[in-house]
């Protein structure tokens, strides 16, 4: 079965076996080179593994882009308290569906990464925190974990190395904020998925109060490739600051939506227009959100940049989770933004005042404007409420909710003005 929309300009490192049903099981995975990296890693020392990942420049693929090897090196090595690894498979960022595909088609790619990472950070228990709604994926991952135990890749004395690791699959109960690392750990502990104040950072006090590393599925899935082939090999892709490849989940008004894995120096505009085929016939793109709904909207003029962390940032947005949402001229941008803010209002855990109240306030103002009852003072008000929400809370959900509104007003003011002044919309119906 061919995976839909494979494109010759992709660099298919992690997504090579997407669509290949034979790659799901452990035998098929072994035939495709699986668990070779694990054997190699277990022959290296934990710090040596960390060093290779550090040198590779692999950055966190969950959204923040923190260097993975550096994160690992924060973990205590004294063995006084148990270390934990939590694999963040919550993938809750709107517009993002890459981890789902990694787990669905290549669960062992992730599990191998988890084992290697756990070994490097001296963890003897790892967790996969999966979004509970992804029922089919959970089945696949559960089966794969059982297979890995049977093969001796998990459990006691892995491959005769003397290293032990338990791996637990934990299902989330459906909260966006469980994808934030401290929120995930709270949820893993059986509490409400409420983010915690940092410091202490998870590497100091994480799951169950113990040092914990939280890494995204895609980050961990890249680890076996790096360990097997070396840091220099990985650095042949991407830029100096953003080495390697990245999966972009592209959705919205595109002719060929889907996951595309590209080198991190790939051009964003080409990703949208070439790989994804641009907007449907006869329409014009208006806005592109490159990294999930938490990052600033980009105008079509802004997207001629490379998809590296620094490239998109210089162009006025963020790479985020790589969840690319394209919006063409048939959509009411105000309504699109309002729906995003509604999502954040629904998902705010409600701990912090500014987020709990601000998200609803923004949504209510937008809804009123949409209804035709907008006032001129609403635009400065939206911006000020957004400013009062950003950088004032424990976790970045509050910032994320303000981002589409603030960037929307900054970049598409005419849309808001048309709604407020004339009660009309600039969308072409």
């Amino acid at each position, binding site marked *: 079965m061919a995976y839909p929309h494979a494109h010759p300009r992709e660099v298919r490192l992690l997504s090579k076996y997407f669509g290949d049903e034979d790659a799901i099981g452990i035998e098929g995975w072994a035939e495709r080179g699986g668990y070779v990296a694990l054997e190699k890693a277990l022959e290296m020392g934990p710090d040596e593994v960390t060093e290779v990942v550090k040198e590779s420049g692999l950055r966190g693929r969950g959204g923040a882009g923190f260097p993975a090897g550096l994160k690992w090196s924060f973990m205590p090595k004294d063995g006084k308290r148990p270390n934990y690894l939590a694999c963040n498979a919550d993938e809750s960022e709107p517009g993002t569906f890459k981890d789902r595909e990694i787990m669905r088609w290549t669960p062992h790619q992730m599990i191998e990464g988890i084992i290697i990472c756990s070994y490097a950070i001296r963890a003897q228990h790892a967790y996969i925190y999966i979004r509970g709604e992804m029922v089919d994926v959970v089945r696949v991952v559960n089966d794969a974990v059982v297979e890995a135990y049977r093969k001796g890749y998990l459990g006691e004395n892995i491959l005769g190395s003397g290293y032990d690791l338990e791996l637990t699959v934990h299902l989330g109960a459906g*909260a966006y904020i469980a994808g934030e690392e401290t929120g995930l750990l709270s949820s893993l502990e059986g509490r*409400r998925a409420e983010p915690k*104040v940092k410091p202490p950072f998870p590497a100091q006090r994480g799951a169950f109060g113990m040092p914990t590393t939280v890494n995204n599925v895609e980050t961990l899935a890249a680890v076996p490739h790096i360990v097997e082939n070396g840091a220099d090999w990985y650095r042949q892709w991407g830029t100096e600051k953003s080495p390697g490849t990245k999966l972009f989940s592209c959705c919205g008004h595109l002719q060929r939506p889907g996951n595309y894995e590209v080198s991190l120096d790939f051009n964003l505009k080409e990703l949208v227009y070439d790989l994804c085929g641009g907007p449907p016939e006869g329409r014009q793109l208006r806005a592109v959100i490159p990294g999930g709904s938490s990052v600033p909207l980009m105008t079509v003029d802004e997207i001629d940049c490379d998809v590296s962390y620094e490239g998109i940032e210089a162009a006025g947005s963020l790479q985020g989770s790589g969840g690319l949402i394209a919006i063409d001229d048939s959509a009411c941008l105000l309504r699109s933004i309002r729906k995003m803010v509604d999502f954040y*209002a*629904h*998902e*705010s*855990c*409600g*701990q*912090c*005042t*500014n987020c*709990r*109240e*601000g*998200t*609803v*306030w923004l949504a*209510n*103002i937008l809804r*009123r404007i949409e209804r035709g009852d907008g006032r001129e003072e609403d635009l400065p*008000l939206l911006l000020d409420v957004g400013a*009062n929400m950003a*950088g*004032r*809370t*424990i976790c970045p959900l509050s910032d994320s909710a303000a981002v589409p509104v603030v960037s929307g007003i900054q970049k598409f003011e005419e849309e808001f003005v048309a709604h407020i002044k004339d009660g009309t919309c600039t969308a072409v119906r």
Partner: protein
Amino acid sequence: MNDEKKLLNVTIDGVELEVPAGTTILAAAERVGAVIPRYCYHPGLSAPAVCRMCLVEVEGAPKPLASCVQPVQDDMVVHTNTAQARKARRAAVEFLLMNHPLDCPICDAAGQCELQDYAFETGQLKTRYVEPKLVMGRDKVTPEIVYFADRCILCTRCVRFMDEIAKDPVLVVINRGQRGYIDTMTGELFENPFSINIVDVCPVGALVNEDFLFKARAWDLDQTASICPGCSQGCNVSLGTKEERIVRAKPRFNPEVNSYWMCDHGRKTVINWGAGARIEVPMARDGDELKPVDWPQALDALSEAIGNEPGRARAIVSAGASNESLFTLRRLMEELGSDGGVFRVPTGPEAELPGFPKLKLRRDRVPNAKGAELLGFQRSDAVFDSAQGHRGALFVLEDTLEGAPDGFGTNAELFVYIGTRLNPAARSADIVLPSTTFAEMAGTFTNFEGRVQRFEQALRGPGLARPWWLTGSALLERLGAGGRYRTAAEVFAALASEVSEYEGLNYEVLGLKGAGAPGSSAAATAG
């Protein structure tokens, strides 16, 4: 770790100071008098840093930091009142008021509400929020505590009190985001012997005690430092009084006794103490009748009776009487030749506050059993036995005489009843002297562990009722048996010079936090 003891330099609003490592910015700021507004932070609970009120500007930090959790770092420069910090605070108040019903005129917390205070302080007369408000209503969480969801700012102090201090984590935030509210997981009422502390920790009027609901405005209450008489723990309390009535008792911070907490039993005891018909005038026997007299007549009658040498004195005292009153009675009995006195102690089940184990609702449901013991009175389960058939002088000090046998005191040559209520058994007294409750006078109680604590007068006594130490001292002076004591402090000074356990103590040393608990020299724990 040695790091904990390290001193760090910090500059707060231009004032340099040294604080131990681990001190939060908020705590350091309080040391230089900069009070940073806060809602979710409570000194007796953990700090979740969720209300976002205590944000301050720290030089070099990209965004304002929550001072309640942020530890001071060496050479940190903090500004608590810059434009950025004030804007952050204004924003938090504006957000909190968005859906707030602004029903201060009918809210129990008005006048003592932190939301009200900071709303005034940030000076936002008009809201920019013009959308419809969220209306959530109210419900009970315990049989006596009402939760007004609309007023709630979700600071979770109540949740954390039940979790961390009561160790009975019944309260949770139900739902999330703006739809969040406080309740038990099952929605059923909960009961806990320390439940009303959640009303105290609530910074707004969301959790209110039905016992106080709509009864008084906070600003109409006078506050008086006192001691809870509900058990031998001696929780420090503040009595809220209005129009000569106690309308509530709230815990007064004392780290040695009750921290910020007290039990529900104590609160009810305080309010009900001294309730009911009171003896308002002195009375002297005239034939078969007790006739009202004035104080000079009463003291004349009493000194005359004592001059007639009624014989040796016995007493039944209450362990709710102050040390000063008990000491005064002891002196009087010594004049006549004392046969000793007894007191009884009503008991009840003990209840511990696990998060602050020093505090228990003690089995002994009286405040001063230890004090009575130290003054030579004997604890007894059968107090009336000693009076039975006693032919000398019999004094009853503030025992209600409930359960006294028929004919109680009739054999005594002289039967003096000093108390607040005239139960049938007291009617056979020769002389009845009206005394005052703990709330109506100053005095001291000695708690279960020997800690001596002062209470202040909150109310006037009814009618001609006077503290017994005052009238007793006057009597002793007439009898030529000692100096005249005009204040409770003077009585206590005399007591301290006679009773070794109180050596070195006086009202100044005791202060309002008490002293003399075991393991600490009297002066060292004075507060």
